[in-house]
Structures are given as C-alpha cells and as structure tokens.
C-alpha cells in the first residue's frame, strides 16, 4: 500500500466515520433520555436518502403516505384522549399538525413536480417529510411503553425497525439510488484526489456536532434533555414532561438520520435496507462510548469508519465480519473496566 492509497482509504474512512459519528451521537442521546436503544436510527438514513432520490426522479416519495398514516394514528390516539378529557381547544392544533400538514404536503407534491425545484429546496422538502416521522413513531410505538424495561423497549425498537424496512421496500423498491453530488469540486492532496463532497460531509457533520453542543449547553430545551438524561424523575419534578423530552430527542434523532442520509446519498448507493448496517456501525461507536459519553462515541465511530475502510482494502469480503467482530473486544474491554451496576427491572 502506498501513500496515495493510504490517503484515499483514510479519506473514505473519515467520511463514513463522520456519518457514523453523527448517528452514534443520536443513539447516545436517545438512549440517555428515553432508555430506548434506537435500532431504527439507520432507517432514517435510508428514508432521507431515498426520499431525496424519489423527489429528484420526479416521483412522489412513499414517505408522504407513511407521514399521513402515522399522523392520522397519532391524531386518533391523542384526539380520543382529548375528547374524553373534554379539552376541545387542543383538538384543532392536533389535527392541523398531524393530518392537515401531511395532507398539504401530499397535495403540494402532486401539484408541483418536485424535480423542478432547485437542489437545496429538494433537500428541505425531503427533510420535512422524514423528520416528523421521528416524534410520531415515538408517540405511537414507544410512549405507551415509556416505563417498560430496557429489554422490552429494545424489542419494540426491533419491531419498528422491521416495519420500516418492509415499508421502505414498498415505497422505494428493491433498487438502490444514488443522488447527484452537491458539488463537483475536487482537490489534490499529496497526489490523491480529494472530493469536494467528502469535505462537505466532514464539514457538515462537524458543524452539526458543534450545533448540537450549543443546543445542549445554551438552550432551555437542550438543558431539559440533559436533565432528563441525568435523572428522569428529578427532571419531571422540575416540570420537564417526559413525553416532551421523548418527542424532542426522537425529532433530533430523525433529523440527524435524515441529514446523514442526504449527505452520503451522493457517495454510496443506498438501498431500502442499507440503513440497518449503517446505523449499527454508528452503534459500535456508541457502545465504545458506553452509550453514555458523546466524545468517546464520536471517536469510536470515526475508528469504525477507518477500520471498515482499511479492511475493505485488505479483505473486502470480510469487511462486515471485521467491523462487527470489533464489538466483541470492545465489549470485553468495557466489561473488564466498568463496574456492573445492578439495574432494577420491573
């Protein structure tokens, strides 16, 4: 291996690692706040990328139907509760947000072929279609089980993952998609080509991470999430509703997922089920951070990206084997260094 290849692979690894790092952060966030191990994180990556690809092909992405269906379910579930409690004033906003806006989005997409929009507005439309799925899924699947054990929540996550994979196949078909690059710029670094798209991914990820940092350090909602992560009961006593915290962090996780998908869509072909493995690699990073530490999780994810990239050069067929076997020594190391803390379950 010469320097050129070394650099090329490193570039690849860092690009993917940056995406895994974003996902790892989202996973740590969701786990810390809600105790949900968010396996479907990867599906948001695929949905983001494939929704954008559908828009660019001039199709109405199936995501909008899911948005409508979930929105209606949420409206029915919450509407029933509001009716029984006699809180009629809350009904109109509930209906507008969960049924009205998705209907409007569907109508808009049919009225105006989305492939004529400029690229940046396609990105915005794709994000707007995918992000609301996060809090809606939280409401429908997780909220009724919010006090269940980590294990039950994990099984729910797997069920949500499986459902989204099936729906992804229904909406986007079995063929993969790749979107055109956001930039055609290319540089040269020590003899190796450096794609503008790569720089974009790394810079965008870094900016998003910095943005998240300020969100958690400086805003009241960020602080509320941190408080909930540290002590759910305490946060609740201080007036932070656990449902709000749950919805908020699922919104963030969906946004991070969709954004990551849109970022990598021009680099790799994304299939309806690609998200699972991408998300799990973020997971390996998150586990390196013990599902608790953000910086260690991000570094771990970068390490996963680099390991994947270099192992694809040496033993491409065993790339996945190597990456997922990495988790075993990591778990061993964690189990030897961390003290087991008894968790009271049910």
């Amino acid at each position: 291996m010469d320097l050129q290849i070394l650099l090329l692979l490193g570039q690849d690894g860092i690009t993917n690692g940056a995406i895994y790092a974003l996902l790892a952060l989202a996973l740590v966030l969701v786990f810390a706040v809600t105790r949900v191990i968010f396996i479907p994180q990867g599906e948001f990556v695929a949905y983001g990328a494939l929704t954008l690809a559908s828009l660019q092909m001039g199709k109405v992405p199936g995501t909008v139907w899911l948005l409508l269906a979930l929105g209606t379910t949420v409206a029915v579930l919450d509407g029933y509760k509001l009716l029984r409690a006699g809180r009629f004033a809350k009904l109109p906003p509930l209906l507008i947000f969960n049924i009205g806006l998705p209907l409007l989005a569907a109508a808009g997409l049919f009225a105006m072929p989305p492939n004529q929009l400029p690229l940046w507005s396609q990105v915005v439309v794709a994000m707007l279609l995918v992000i609301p799925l996060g809090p809606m899924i939280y409401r429908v699947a997780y909220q009724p089980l919010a006090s269940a054990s980590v294990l039950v929540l994990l099984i729910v996550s797997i069920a949500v993952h499986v459902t989204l994979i099936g729906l992804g196949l229904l909406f986007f078909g079995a063929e993969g998609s790749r979107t055109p690059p956001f930039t055609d710029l290319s540089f040269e670094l020590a003899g190796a080509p450096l794609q503008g798209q790569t720089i974009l991914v790394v810079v965008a990820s870094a900016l998003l991470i910095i943005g998240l940092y300020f969100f958690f350090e400086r805003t009241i909602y960020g602080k509320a999430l941190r408080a909930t992560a540290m002590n759910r009961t305490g946060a609740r006593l201080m007036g932070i509703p656990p449902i709000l915290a749950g919805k908020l962090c699922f919104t963030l996780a969906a946004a991070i997922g969709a954004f990551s998908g849109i970022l990598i869509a021009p680099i790799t072909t994304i299939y309806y089920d690609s998200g699972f493995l991408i998300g799990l690699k973020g997971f390996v990073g998150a586990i390196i951070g013990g599902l608790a530490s953000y910086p260690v999780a991000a570094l771990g994810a970068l390490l996963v990206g680099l390991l994947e990239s270099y192992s694809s050069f040496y033993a491409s067929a065993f790339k996945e084997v190597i990456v997922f076997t990495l988790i075993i020594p990591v778990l061993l190391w964690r189990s030897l260094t961390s003290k087991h803390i008894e968790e009271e379950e049910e």
Partner: protein
Amino acid sequence: MTRHFPIVLFIALLAVSPLLLPEFTITLLNYIGLYAIVAVGLVLLTGVGGLTSFGQAAFVGLGAYTTAYLTTVYGLSPWLTLFIGLAITALVALCLGFITLRMGGHYLPLGTIAWGISLYFLFGNLEFLGGHTGITGIPTIALFGLELKSSRDFYYLIWIVVLLAILAIRNLLDSRQGRAIRALKGGTVMAEAMGVNTPRLKIVIFLIAALLASMSGWLYAHLQRFVNPTPFGINQGIEYLFMAVIGGIGHVWGAVLGAGLITILKQWLQDWLPQILGQSGNFEIIVFGIAMIIVLQRARDGLWPVLLKLLPERTLKRRRPNGEILPKRPSTAAGTLLLKAEEVTKRFGGLIANDSLSLTVNAGEVMALIGPNGAGKSTMFNCISGLNPASAGKIAFLGQSTVATVSRDIARQGMSRTFQHVRLLGQMSVLENVAIGGHLRGSKGVFAAALRLDRGEENRLLAEAARQIERVGLAEQMFEPAGSLALGQQRIVEIARALCSDPCLLLLDEPAAGLRYKEKQALAELLGKLRNEGMGILLVEHDMDFVMELADRVVVMEFGQKIAEGRPEEIQRDPKVLEAYLGGVE
C-alpha cells in the same frame, strides 16, 4: 386427568396428522417444530431469565453448517456431527456469554445482533463453506436402520425433539435451579444473597438456549439436505424472538404457539400481500412488526395466557410437601463471636455513609442497630453481607475475613439476610419463594433437574421450606402467590426464606415495619426462640418498643458514626442518643 387432557389431545393430534394431512401441511408442521425448538430456548432465556438474544439464528447456523460440512466433506455420521455441532456451539456461546453477560442487560442483545451479522457474512464468504450458494448433498439421517427421507419420516423426529425439549425445560423450571433462574429476572441481588451463583446461572441458560438452537440447525440441515447462509441471518434471529414474544414469552407452550402462528401467517401473507400490493417482496415483516408493537403494548405476556383462560382452571399442587429433615450445620455455642466489624468505612463518591464503624455480634444474642433515617444502617448491612463491600476496614465472620468475599460465599458460610425493600418473586408461591433460601442446601444441577433425577432432594428442600413457613406462622398462605400477601407478611416470608438457609447469623432489615401489634409480638417471640437456639441476630429497626424489649445490646448510629453502644436501658438514658432522636436540650 382433566388437567392433562389438552396436552394429551395435542400430542394425539400430532401423532396422527402425518396419516391424514397433505405433504405441504406436513412440511409446514416440520418448520413449525424446528422454529419451536429455538423459541423454547428463548422462553427460558428471555421470558424466565430476563436476558435476550437476537442471534439465535446464528447458533442454528452453527449446528447446520457443522453437520453439512463434516458429513459432505469428511463423510462423518450425522449422529457424530450432531455432538460436534453442539460442542462448537457450546464453545462459542460460552465465550460470548462470558463477555457480554457480565454487563448490564442490554449489552447481550446488542452483542448478539453484531455476532449474528458477522457470522452470516462469515458463512457467506468462506470458500470452503460454499459461499453464498452454500453446501448441497447433505446425507439423510438413519434411525434404527430406517432412513428418514421424506418430510413425513422426519416429522416424528422433529416433534419428538420439540416435546422432549419442552418437557426438559418444564422440569428444569420446577426445581431448585429453576427457582434460581426465575429469581434472575428481578435483579441479581436477592439471588446472590441466597447463595445463587448468578453469573454462572446466566451463562448456563444462555448455553441451553444456544444448544437447542444448534440442535434445530442439525435437524434443518438433514431435512433440507442443503444449507445456505440466508436462514441464519439476523432477520431470522429477530423472527425467532417475535415467535416467542407473540406466543407468550413466559410459557414453554407459548413458544410452540408463536412458532405456529408466525409460520402459518407468514406463509399466508407471502401469498397474498404481493398480490394486494402489486409488488414482490417480504412485506409480511410490516405486519409482524406492527403486530409485535401491539402485543407488547396490549398483552405483554403474549397470546398463550389469553388461550389458557379458555381452558378449565387448573388445580394447583396444594399438598404440603413431605420429606426427610435436611442436615443442619453444627450449632454455635452461645457467646461465640460470630461477626466482628472493625473501623468499617463506606464512601459513595464524596459522601461517607459509614465512618469507622465497629460492632460485634455473638451467638445467642440480638444486636440492634438503630439510628435516624439516613444514618447508614442499611449501608452497613450491605457491607456486612458483601452486597456492596466496604471501602475500608475489617469485617470477619466466624473468624474469617470477608472483605474480598462475594455475598453468595458469605451466605454459604452461614449468614442470611432480609431486605428493607422486600425482594420476593410476586408471581411465585410463598413455598417456592422460601425454598430459594434453601438453595445452598441442595446440590443437584440443571441436568438432574431436566431429567427429574432430583426429586428426593427437591422434596427435602420443599419440606424444609414448608417447616420454616409453619415456624413463622404463615402455613395458611403457603400456596398463595407471594405478591398477594400484605407487606408485613411479605417481610415475614423473607425471614422464613432466610431461615431456610439454616444460618447461624441472621441479618434483619426492619422486620417489624408494617406489622400489626399481635404480629409484632409473634415476631418477637420467634426471634427470642431463635436466640435461645444459639442464633446470632443483627437487627435494624425503627420500632423502639420492639427493639428495647428484644435486644441484648444496641448500637446507635447517626450520620454514619457510632454515637453509643450498650444495653437497652443504658442507651435509653444516653444523652447523645436523646439528642439525636429528640433534639438537643439547650
């Protein structure tokens, strides 16, 4: 007989169905059987033990690939490769279990997802295993000279394995080890205090589940006579868990129900959904996913309990168990030094919960540890019983230092305890709960339990538990679920459980809380009797009348420090104690 009627009917139907049903249905039943074997393992692991794995399909694959490779390449007998496959599976499961089971509950499932994926890719990429095309030409199995060629022949073999697996797991759960396994789900603290080696037990149930999966893989390979990586991927691993959860994760028959439902539903959905949707693909997973979410939200115990309600109510075993008396440890002479704690300090970060605390307990005396809330009494208990070891200081039990001893080994030496927050298994009967206390007085393992070779010992243990229940005065409630008792009575059950271990030192954490006056009197009488038999009792209690009447010596704590020690009447006059309890006299 009526109790067994549904099972007998089910087995009879199973036995005649190959004679009546078409080939296609038999094949379907074969697959249901194969899946049920794996799901039964998951019931033990997840439903009973509270651990879970999404990687069971990979263990199925290990069993299938081992026999496929060894029979086709080396021409080994399938009966030999069965055991080689089981051995390889055991080895892998031991390594994985050792690494992941030590950690919190969710690391095991995550580890199994990763391991399920990597094994799938490994099967698909190893040249000698045929890559993604797999291995063909796997020989048939011959049983007593009879070659099992058709799926009808195989049917009986598969279902015999299913029924044997169910029988073995049911037997196991109804035994000393089974009670310990059931205790795992509520956290390991109580089980450890009763002397159960919980890390070992977790590995054992993980191993049993893996071996059942491997067995299913071996059957699969010889039924199909062809293997490729697809049925051993993570998706199948997830489906196994779905089967167990939808069927009823806490019941062995739920595994069969779940395997049947999912397999038939899948068959049906795979025919219809592509036609309805106008596309081909595995759309049944959408239905399964949504069904899972609904089951978890609405009927977390699955469909089997729903079905059970339709059957006539079963009469529980209500006969008081009879058995010979278990051997007791030699009693310690009154006045012997049992426990000596010197300068025990316990820190939680910056907080000092116990500050250089010393106390002793002799045989044949009641030592009371009192003090206001938050004084560090329960912390001291946890230090002594080894649950949460002290940061500094010396603790010796029967002359031996216990500083580096885990709580189950301290229990083995003859110390038993109750908990301030009652730790009973609410679904289990009082008798079974108390029998957990006798864990260390039996020795039969999981094999003996599965094969019912443990009945003699089991009877002796249950009889001992029954005697202790009668001793504390709860004979009437012996067969009721522990969770249905009043809190005060539950505390008494905890005392019976502690007594069932035949201790020489008893640690009681607020035993009288929640008891009525008469019950308190009965408890005091019981403790007095135990003292006269030479037992040492260390007591934490807030009821001063109870303490002052019963205790021989009292230690008073405040803010982690000992402020007074002496006979009850001295303590009652001690100015420091009065200040701590009543506020200072200015």
